[in-house]
């Protein structure tokens, strides 16, 4: 019954490594853009959501952890509703653009570099221990701190809903998943 395993079945290791590297050098956070760009390219160019079930390391990680730790409680209806999914996507994008604006302010030298990672859009965690000595502009580092916050926040949310509900409950309201589904819907006019 078991399916043959492929190289992409181990991408959860990459996800884990990504989170770990952010504790040592924040510049690795830039690599997270792959998780944003690849699904969008796949949906725009191919009209598919293959990234979600095949290449999403985070989904795999949640699935593996969930097999052991998930309580498997019934998912609340509101969590799977279109209102919540599109609302969360909108909120997530607003916060993302807010992070980009902070990066711009550092670029424009209107603000100094802040070596903090914001968790759950509320909690500022000092992250200077992962500060990078790379000879790059401050805005490049600011983006890395901001983006790592985005990735860490989504991981924490994914872990919480994994513990409570199904292992991959995050996939229900994952902004990238919602966005790529919308792209596919628009592409096929459904």
């Amino acid at each position: 019954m078991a399916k043959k395993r492929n190289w992409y079945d181990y991408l959860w290791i990459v996800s884990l490594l990504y989170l770990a590297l952010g504790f040592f050098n924040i510049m690795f956070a830039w690599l997270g853009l792959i998780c944003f760009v690849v699904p969008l390219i796949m949906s725009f160019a191919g009209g598919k959501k293959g990234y979600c079930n095949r290449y999403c390391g985070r989904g795999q990680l949640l699935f593996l952890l969930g097999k052991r730790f998930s309580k498997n409680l019934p998912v609340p209806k509101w969590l799977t509703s279109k209102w919540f999914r599109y609302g969360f996507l909108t909120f997530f994008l607003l916060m993302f653009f807010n992070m980009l604006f902070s990066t711009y302010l550092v670029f424009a030298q209107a603000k100094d570099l802040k070596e903090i990672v914001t968790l759950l859009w509320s909690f500022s965690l000092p992250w200077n221990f992962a500060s990078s000595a790379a000879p790059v502009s401050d805005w490049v580092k600011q983006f890395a701190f901001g983006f790592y916050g985005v990735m860490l926040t989504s991981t924490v949310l994914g872990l919480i809903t994994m513990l409570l509900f199904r292992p991959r409950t995050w996939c229900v309201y994952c902004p990238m998943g919602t966005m790529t589904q919308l792209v596919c819907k628009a592409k096929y006019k459904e």
Partner: protein
Amino acid sequence: MKKIATLPTSACVSCGCCETVCPKNAVAVYNGIYAKVTTSLCIGCGLCVKACPAQIISLREADSVG
């Protein structure tokens, strides 16, 4: 009576978790929009039912599925 997986396509989030676990490749995400079950391939094992994070897949008797 043979059972097969069914789902309301409008509620599907097209995450593909069902596709990942299906041992018979009986379910696949159609055009990135919703999962579609090929009833002739489905063996009613229920793995997709357990894997679906939106909890929208259920097993029904084959005769009752149009």
